[in-house]
């Protein structure tokens, strides 16, 4: 039997909340996010999201729930044969949107994250930071109800990092719940949002380091 990575993890995210997910390497941050973006089901326990029981939800209904969740993967997961524009537009294409309905939004979003001049570039020709921005743009393009980001500012310089976090904050203000897994203490202090801290596979809820919640 596989060892349990997460146990005694219980939390509730209010709609429109903003949380950081912290913990040392191997604490289970990515595992928790994987459960939240439905890459796997828990071996025990239960998860409900948007009123659905994810543990027992029929597989055929998962795509509709997943479309309401934007994910920034730690390894970006861009498709190398697609351009920057196509990578970002992918969630919209999958949702059945027509190019004429989304193309301007995608261009604007890419311009906003500083990649307006790299619309036709493919991921292998982009730097790590640029790839990360493409991944973030893809995660937010469909205006998800829940945004999950795994170390979203790990590869970008602080200035760009701040800008990207602002994007998350703006999306949060529009009503999306945001969970950002990070090691970046500076970021956690600066944004000052409640913290979900994973320690040895258990979850501890902490208030923001400054004692106030600036985002939610």
């Amino acid at each position, binding site marked *: 039997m596989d060892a349990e990575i997460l146990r005694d993890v219980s939390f509730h995210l209010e709609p429109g909340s903003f949380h950081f997910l912290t913990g040392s390497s191997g604490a289970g941050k990515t595992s928790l996010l994987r459960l939240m*973006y*439905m*890459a*796997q*089901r828990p071996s025990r326990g239960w998860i409900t999201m948007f009123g659905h029981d994810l543990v027992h939800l029929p*597989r*055929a209904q*998962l*795509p*509709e729930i*997943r*479309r309401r969740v934007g*994910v920034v993967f730690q390894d970006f*997961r861009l*498709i190398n*044969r*697609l*351009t920057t*524009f*196509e990578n970002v537009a*992918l*969630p919209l*294409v*999958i*949702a059945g949107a027509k*190019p004429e309905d989304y*193309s*301007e*939004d995608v*261009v*604007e*979003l890419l*311009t*906003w994250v500083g990649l*307006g001049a790299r*619309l*036709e570039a493919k991921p292998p020709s982009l730097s790590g930071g640029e790839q990360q921005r493409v991944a973030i743009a*893809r995660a937010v393009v469909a205006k998800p109800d829940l945004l999950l980001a795994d170390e979203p500012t790990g590869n970008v310089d602080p200035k760009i990092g701040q800008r990207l976090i602002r994007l998350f904050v703006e999306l949060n203000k529009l009503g999306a719940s945001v969970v950002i897994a990070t090691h970046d203490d500076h970021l956690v202090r600066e944004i000052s949002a409640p913290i979900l801290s994973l320690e040895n596979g258990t979850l501890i809820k902490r208030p923001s380091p400054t004692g106030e919640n600036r985002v939610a």
Partner: protein
Amino acid sequence: MTASTHPSLSKTWDGGLRRHLQTLLKPRRIVPTNDSGARPLLGVITIMCFFAALAGESVLLINRAVDEWTAGLSSAVTIQLRPVAGNTDPSLDQQMEQILTRVRTMPGVIQVRPLTRRATEKLLEPWLGAGNLLDELPIPRMIDVTIDTAHPPDMAALARDLGKISPGATLNDHSKWNDQILIFANFLSGLAVGILTLTIAATAIIVIFATRAGLTARHDTVELLHLIGAHDSFIAREFEIQFLMMGLRAGALAIIAAVMTLLLLQFLILQFINVETYFLPAPDLHFSDLIFLLAIPLGAALVASLTTRFTVLRVIGRIL
């Protein structure tokens, strides 16, 4: 978000961005199957389509030839009147007249044509040579009878009547030949259909392996598509379209190869075989052949795409 609300976008929108977008929006396949294996796979499917085309063409040629042979044989009956020692009263000519009278009055007979001695001699020329037949040599009298195949005469009654008229009279309705030709032709057709079926099955198996390899090679992309909300059918369509296009291309190449092969065969027959004595099916192209050949790319595309869809749905159905 709109273009008009963003200054940087507004600046560039009229300056070529529209054209730029048109380039961006060109459809591109999200999931490539297996770039390095695509060409050999195209080659293998083309060969399979070529075999399928030849097998199918064989069925059409055989059926056409059998129709020609059996149409001629089943509507023709031959009556032979052989001189028999001691059977001279009435004379052979009188016996011939009695037979003609009897046959002409039978229902189901369309035409009765007695062969002249010269015509009968001509039939023997391939064996005996021209002008080598002695006048004294007793040659059987022949009567060609054309019957209505829809309402044939009572052959058993005719045979009985002929026997009463003359002990030397026999009836040959070619049914023995007809049956044997049909059995042999059906066997050949069955063989060709079997080859065609095996070719389709082999193509499907190849496509299954290629699809599985493509799914394994693109596992990360498939998982990503799932995680951002793609239904299985969306992912299956990505693979399906590529194999559909490959099937169409392979089928088109196979048609060209098959037509060239048939034309070459036709040329060789015309060059090296005596056309007058040639009785096997001629590999000439009819309208039905063209219809069949045009169906090859469509069939290949259908087999490839359906097989791919089935395989993809089956494999990714096990992934969350």
